[in-house]
């Protein structure tokens, strides 16, 4: 079977990237529209491929298109099945909306065309990742999205902080690539094939230890890409990129690649309870750590970054323990509401001339009502208030952990839901409620380094806009509000829901043992905890008294922030000490001491000895012709004498 549409989905963004890159100076402002058009066509192609992606042919689900062999005996192809279909829909659909938004957001930037070239390239890379039918293709996509992310984080490359953030993200992502490579080597050494079909068919022949190793190394890749503890430290820094980049790459799509990987490799995880425990635990820890750190941030984008990390922790926890449907469902809803939250924050940042510190906001509900509505629905969705989308998917994950026999993770999930509700409402209340604090002296708000936190350092976009966002930025946000509110209904109805039927073949529900707490009870418990979290946030930030002395309260909170929180649990410092400093020390020692002094020293010593020998031998070289002649004669005489004597002896 041939599926030309699959090729169209995959290659249209690449064409857009190449055109924008090479024709950028000619296209100027049209580059944005070109990129949007390419991605829009790709989205249409995805929608048109829906039927082939869900079909059943010869016992296999989905559409498979061989492209040819890459290395001898190694075929490369595209595979569109329900799982990759869901991802492709988000990548092209949400990606299209964010591209549209970027046309407004990046308007007037010096490197407008380059931005869209990178964005389209990212979409191409991400589609390579999710459409590949084998591990090598996945690894190629994995590396390329890392590259696109590097380019876009460091997009404003004249800012040292952006450059450093890009480098950090890239290197940590390469650590992940290497993890996947190791898993690939083990798989190839054991199964002699790297296509998904062959590997999953051969799972049974792997020993428990091998399988655990494969899963663990794959998870190193997933953890690096999806910002799981302890490889998460690049994600908050990655917010140095333009806000649409944060929305597309560092919220909706790329950072969920780890979730995709584990869901894709469900046959591996399902056979390894050790891997399930490992991944579920790390996912739970990340969810909790991200949420706790989210409560301690002041930068609007860093709050969202930590919330992304926390929500991906949920997804990883879900797919890790075996609740694949739930984990993927949370990815699906999260893509919408987190993209919307980021785009809404972009509206705020844009309108406030690149201010990102929430302490200097406040009272924006009146100034920016549309941004408030967008942010508000997003917050309700992420908190899991019914009927917003997050409610359905988060419940599935939390209940899934219990159903698969992990009560501790269940507890972590519920606790995290409460903390999430607290810090997201804190963000909403501090930003939009009360009085505007932009004209207050930063030091009154507890901002220690206003020159670092203020307008000058952040988002050095070319023009500052004081006006309300243009329609081109509002329309995508408006469209996103619809799925944020309604998409969860796809998952409503337990086993009979559209979602369950969609994934029935790929992730069969199997026999779920009865649990001590039923799904309905779980829902109620979570809701109660969420309401408690919201309540605390209201009490601290939204009551009349809280709003009246908001400046004083914010200052107190800033000043009394525990060091462990403001240093993000010292993960950065620990990684720096363990890996960066140690390799730098070794490199310096080798380069400054061992190389020039020991190794080369030995060589120089040998050369010096040769020179010394030469000065001794020099004495014979008088430069006088007759001396040489005399020595020759003496030598000849010695020769003759020797042979004459030797001959005489015989």
């Amino acid at each position, binding site marked *: 079977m041939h599926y030309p549409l699959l090729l169209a989905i995959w290659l249209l963004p690449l064409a857009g990237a190449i055109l924008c890159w090479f024709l950028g100076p000619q296209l100027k402002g049209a580059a944005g529209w070109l990129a949007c058009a390419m991605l829009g066509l790709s989205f249409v192609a995805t929608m048109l491929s829906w039927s082939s992606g869900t079909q059943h042919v010869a016992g296999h689900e989905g559409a498979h298109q061989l492209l040819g062999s890459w290395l001898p005996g190694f075929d490369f192809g595209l595979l569109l099945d329900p799982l990759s279909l869901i991802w492709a829909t988000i990548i092209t659909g949400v990606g299209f909306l964010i591209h549209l938004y970027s046309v407004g957001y990046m308007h007037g930037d010096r490197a407008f065309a380059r931005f869209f070239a990178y964005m389209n390239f990212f979409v191409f890379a991400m589609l390579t990742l999710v459409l590949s039918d084998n591990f090598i293709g996945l690894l*190629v996509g994995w590396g390329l999205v890392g590259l696109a992310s590097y380019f876009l984080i460091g997009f404003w*490359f004249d800012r040292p902080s952006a450059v450093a953030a*890009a480098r950090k993200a*890239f290197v940590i992502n390469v650590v992940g690539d290497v993890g996947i490579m190791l898993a690939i080597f083990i798989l190839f050494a054991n199964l002699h094939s790297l296509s998904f079909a062959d590997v999953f068919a051969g799972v049974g022949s792997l020993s428990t230890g091998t399988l655990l190793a494969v899963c663990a190394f794959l998870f190193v890749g997933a953890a690096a890409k999806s910002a799981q503890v302890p490889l998460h430290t690049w994600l908050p820094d990655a917010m140095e990129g333009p806000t649409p980049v944060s929305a597309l790459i560092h919220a909706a799509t790329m950072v969920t690649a780890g979730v995709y990987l584990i869901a894709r490799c469900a046959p591996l995880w399902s056979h390894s309870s050790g891997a399930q425990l490992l991944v579920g635990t790390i996912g739970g820890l990340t969810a909790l750590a991200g949420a706790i750190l989210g409560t301690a941030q002041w930068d609007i984008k860093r709050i969202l970054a930590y919330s992304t990390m926390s929500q991906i922790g949920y997804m990883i926890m879900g797919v890790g323990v075996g609740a694949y449907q739930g984990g993927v469902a949370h990815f699906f809803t999260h893509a919408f509401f987190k993209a919307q939250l980021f785009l809404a924050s972009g509206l705020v940042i844009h309108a406030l001339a690149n201010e990102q510190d929430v302490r200097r906001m406040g009272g924006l509900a009146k100034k920016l009502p549309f941004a408030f509505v967008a942010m508000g629905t997003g917050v309700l969705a992420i908190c899991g208030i019914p009927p917003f989308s997050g409610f359905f998917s988060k419940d599935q994950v939390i209940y899934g952990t219990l159903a698969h026999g992990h009560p501790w993770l269940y507890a972590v999930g519920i606790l995290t839901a409460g903390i999430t509700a607290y810090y997201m409402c804190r963000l909403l209340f501090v930003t939009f409620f009360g009085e505007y604090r932009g004209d207050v002296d930063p030091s009154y708000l507890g901002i220690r380094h206003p020159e670092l936190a203020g307008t000058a350092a952040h988002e050095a976009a070319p023009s500052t806009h004081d006006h309300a966002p243009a329609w081109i930025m509002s329309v995508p946000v408006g469209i996103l509000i619809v799925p944020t509110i309604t998409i969860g209904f796809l998952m409503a109805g337990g086993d009979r829901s559209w979602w369950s039927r969609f994934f029935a073949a790929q992730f069969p529900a199997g026999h779920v043992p009865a649990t001590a707490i039923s799904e309905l009870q779980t829902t109620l418990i979570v809701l109660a905890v969420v309401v408690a979290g919201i309540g605390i946030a209201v009490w601290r930030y939204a009551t009349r008294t809280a709003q009246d002395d908001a400046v004083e309260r914010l200052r107190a909170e800033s000043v009394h922030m525990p060091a462990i929180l403001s240093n993000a649990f010292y993960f950065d410092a620990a990684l720096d000490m363990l890996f960066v400093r140690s390799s730098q020390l070794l490199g310096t020692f*080798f380069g400054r001491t061992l190389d020039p002094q020991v190794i080369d020293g030995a060589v120089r010593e040998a050369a010096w000895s040769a020179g010394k020998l030469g000065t001794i031998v020099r004495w014979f070289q008088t430069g006088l012709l007759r001396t040489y002649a005399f020595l020759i004669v003496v030598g000849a005489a010695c020769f003759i004498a020797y042979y004459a004597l030797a001959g005489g002896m015989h």
Partner: protein
Amino acid sequence: MLLWMLILLPAIAGGLCYLIPSDDERIVKMFGILVAVATIVLAVVTRNAEVSARWLSRPFEANFHFGATPISFWIVLLLTISTASAVLATKGPRQRGLIALLLLLEASMLAVFLARDLLVFALGWDLMLIPVFFCLVQWSEHAQTAWRYFLYNFAGGLTLLLATAAFGMHVGTTDVIGRSDVHVIGSWAPWILAGFAFAFLVKTPVWPLHTWMPATYTDLPPPMVAVVSAVQSKAGLYGFIAIGMAFLPDYMKQYAGIFIVLGAISLLYGALVALMQTDAKRVVAYSSLSHLGLIVVAVFAFNAVALQGAVVYIVAHGLFSAAIFLLLGYVEEREATRSLLQLGGLGADNPRLAGALCIAALAALGLPGLAGFVGEIVIVTGIFQAGMVWPAIVALVAIVLAAAYVVRLFQGLMNGPGVPDLPVRRDLTWIEGLAVAPLLAALVVVGIDPKPLLSFDTSAYAVSAHGAPVASARISR
């Protein structure tokens, strides 16, 4: 006939460069480019050709026997292309001498890689020192560098010659490269291997015989160092494959542990040192130590997959190191410094320069889709398959370090705030771009479709065939 032309053309043209009676260096450059392009064409045309002329019959048989083998063809192609790029990239007042030396270097290296006779190989090996040595004498600010280069490599040339002579005495002929029926067995064989191996390890170079390399790479003018790092450093690796694996496989395997350890140390050591260098050229020099260490490990894995990967990576490393050195030359020419501490922000005003360096740098760090990735992943798959888990893990650690130092190099040059007191910048001219374009295009092509490079028959090398009927009978005396 054409094959004779291929070898003699650059040799004669190199001599002629000194004789062209013109003060206009552009004529010399045009002449050099024409010759270099002609050698590319000839190299492709003579892919399957062989020529031979008698040289010695006593004490052992040796012939001027030339012809590309399936592996050496790719290196010859790399050599001719990178020489053309280098000639195109020459600049400055002393172009004439540089172009002449480049052509002479090409001729001597063609002799090395096309030789089907060990003695001719050894002859070419020593000849290729000379152009580099004179280049160092004329261009280097440190007199020591030239002598250090010469003495190290000449010592290697000496052991190579001794080993070749011993080989000839044992086998009765040195006209053997490309044959798979000659195996040297006997008490002398380990010494023959040692002689070859020392020469190859110095040339590659491999830790701890590498200290001539950073100084040489730093002091050579960019076009010359591009060719030297791209091709001359591959002579040792090619020797291990075409001579060691083919004629001394048993002893190669017996002593493989030593070489694998040295290769793995180079791999890690080079990467760590590259991480902390401030001279852009030294970063690339030490990264070469690291990358070539990986190929040494791959060769000694005695695994078909690893060997295929080694060939791809030999070509890939040649392409990206030549491109990076040429581009660093452009940077140095514009800014009059190579220090990462002083440079920065070049990307803003030089988008083409930044884009070109970006592609080359990404290939160096093994980005999927470019040639370096194919080489790396095929090699490590192979050495993992051969059961060498620890070298594979060292290689993977080095990949992470490579990402760190390559990104540091790229960002140090191109990103960050621009340095105000640097001279006015000018983006790549079209000639400068044309010089690196073939290298970058080849990186992409090989990255997407590496199959042609993998089509050689590994059974002649990787499979440990014991006892060859023809030669071993003569050896056993």
